[in-house]
């Protein structure tokens, strides 16, 4: 029997003989550093953020250093890195950097300046749209996951029905009727509130008000189902086309049409977390619901929400570019990557840089977001995490 062939170089000199425990953040950071694709994504994202902020400062204001709107008709469609023809331009028309780094477009505008301006637009569109979507998603998903078992009473439905009816009437310009309905609704609501506080039983003829109809969860999930029935790009396109062209409309609409995914999985997260021991313990200690939600459940749900937000930003940026491309995007003269590309499509063979500069820029930034988001998803996956 072989016996002594065991190593003497046994590791672990600490007393516990257990792996050193790291905080979750340190652990995440450690894993992120090991995932090269995700790390690259993060670095590109940070660079892009810097560029967008720098771009905002140098291209905005009354007399920007790089003027994205300066038209130089005699300098149109100059290729990248070409020097301006100094003789035909006035001194304030010369590009600040001495050359056209990314060439000029069909109006002789400096594509580099326009790209810088567009970077900020892309960034805000992505962030605001996803901010809205994630906000709605967390709210609805959280309600659905935490309060989902509670019933909506017929009184609630009546209230909302009256409210909606009032709004519809207001749109139909039947203002007096709308006002009456509104007052009735609010009065009923207040009456019920007061009644609840007094804990006296409702009069028999009004019993039906407190009749439970449908679970909150059912309602919210059906709303998600309904929203998922709309083909999303088509819906966005329709609404954007109906509204006056504006960059804020686009952000809001993209946000309002993409909250369903977040809702669904915040709900799932809440459902699983609220069954867990630490929440049960907190509840047994008589800690209030808001405190449980914000101190105990939210911190656990926040990481996966951030992952889906990252991926959402990528897709919002693509959507914005697609809308701009179809001519529904951010109205000119404001430059976005989508509309630079869209303007460039007429010159695709003569001036390919007009297509490639924004195309490649969108590709790289969206890729960075996707890599980072997917990488984080892997990292946060407990299955991958436990074997370290």
């Amino acid at each position: 029997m072989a016996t002594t062939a065991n190593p003497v170089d046994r590791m672990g000199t600490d007393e516990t003989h257990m792996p050193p425990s790291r905080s979750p953040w340190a652990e995440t950071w450690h894993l992120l550093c090991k995932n090269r694709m995700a790390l690259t994504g993060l670095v590109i994202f940070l660079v892009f953020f810097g560029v967008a902020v720098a771009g905002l400062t140098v291209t905005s204001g009354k007399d920007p250093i790089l003027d994205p709107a300066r038209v130089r008709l005699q300098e149109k469609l100059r290729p990248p890195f070409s020097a301006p023809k100094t003789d035909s331009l006035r001194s304030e028309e010369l590009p600040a950097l001495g050359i056209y780094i990314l060439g000029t477009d069909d109006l002789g505008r400096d594509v580099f300046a326009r790209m810088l301006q567009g970077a900020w637009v892309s960034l805000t569109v992505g962030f605001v749209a996803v901010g809205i979507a994630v906000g709605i998603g967390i709210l609805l998903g959280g309600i659905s996951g935490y309060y989902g078992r509670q019933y909506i009473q017929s009184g609630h439905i009546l209230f909302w029905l009256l409210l909606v009816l009032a709004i519809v009437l207001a749109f139909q310009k039947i203002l007096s009727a709308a006002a009456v309905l509104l007052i009735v609704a609010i009065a009923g609501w207040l009456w019920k509130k007061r009644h609840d506080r007094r804990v006296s039983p409702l009069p028999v003829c009004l019993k039906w008000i407190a009749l439970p109809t449908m679970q909150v969860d059912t309602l919210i999930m059906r709303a998600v189902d309904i929203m998922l029935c709309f083909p999303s790009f088509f819906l966005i396109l329709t609404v954007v086309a109906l509204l006056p062209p504006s960059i804020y409309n686009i952000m809001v609409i993209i946000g309002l049409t993409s909250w369903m995914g977040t809702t669904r999985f915040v709900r799932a997260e809440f459902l699983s977390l609220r069954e867990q021991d630490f929440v049960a313990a907190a509840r047994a200690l008589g800690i209030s619901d808001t405190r449980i939600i914000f101190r105990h459940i939210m911190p656990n749900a926040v990481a996966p929400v951030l992952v889906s937000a990252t991926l959402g930003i990528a897709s919002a940026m693509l959507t914005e570019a697609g809308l701009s491309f179809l001519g529904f995007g951010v109205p000119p003269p404001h430059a976005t990557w989508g509309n630079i590309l869209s303007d460039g499509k007429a010159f695709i063979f003569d001036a390919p840089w007009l297509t490639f500069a924004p195309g490649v820029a969108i590709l790289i930034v969206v890729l960075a977001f996707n890599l980072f988001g997917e990488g984080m998803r892997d990292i946060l996956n407990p299955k991958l995490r436990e074997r370290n």
Partner: protein
Amino acid sequence: MGRSNDILLAVENLKVHFTGDGPVARAVDGMDFQIHRRETVCIVGESGCGKTVTALAILGLLKQPPAIIADGRITFDGRSLLDMPAAELRALRGKRIAMVFQEPMTSLNPVFPIGDQIGEAVLAHERVSEVAVRRRVNQLLDDVGIVDPQRRLGDYPHQLSGGQRQRVMIAMALACEPDLIIADEPTTALDVTVQAQILGLLKKLKQEKNMAIQYITHDLGVVAAIADQVYVMYAGVVVEQGTTGIIFGNARHPYTVALLNALPTKKKRGRRLYSIPGSVPHPAYRPMGCPFHPRCEYCEPSCQNAFPALCDYGKGHHARCPILFAARGRAEETRA
């Protein structure tokens, strides 16, 4: 014991390490044991000491990476399993060495009827007709005590109880009448009555089919019920080995002693059960010297530095504790 020609499986100095981030985890760290033909060998040890990893290494089922077989030899019926070409090893799996896994609930494929899953084990190794396979599967299910096998053949795993599923797993392992069955805690996930039934079943089948069994468990009660030979494992190594009688009557390693103390018996009735202080060290952060020393009540300064060798007590009884060995030596001297 002059049975060396009878050795079916010999594992020598097996080391399985897991790489990943952080230090290497030495899950199995110099494992030695032998199984003779028609013998029931129990491998006992706390959770996480490397029992399953050892078993998977024998069958070549470890995913490499993250696992690496850093050292050692595994010889089955005179042939080295570690150097065997993949195709031959595959032909051996299920045919000559079969395994019953720890978790009956998840070890059966949910989308195939159990009859097909058992039959598949036969068809993988033998050329037989559909009808013959069906008859065989029927017989197997009957052997493992499933009532009305004819009807249950087409059942899906979710239609069976945990005990029935484990019986199906055993039937699957028996399908090709292997020489060795590795049963990895086959009863841990089941309740006590079912546990006793499964144990009885394994014992009976072993008699009928002339198989050897490598039974992995952390339950000394089970060991007493079925084992011929016992290997007590701690932190990836064997710390004590001997026949069942010796281990239960004359344990010479502090860990085995502690395990036995923790066992509920009639004598200890009404008293508080002993439990071993501390917990099994993580395989990547084992202490220097004897792996058990932080939890050991006989610990001496020397235990913290030198890895203990196996001490021979004769009659195949070995224990990896020089302190107790020396103490016994002194006791015998004084008696003399």
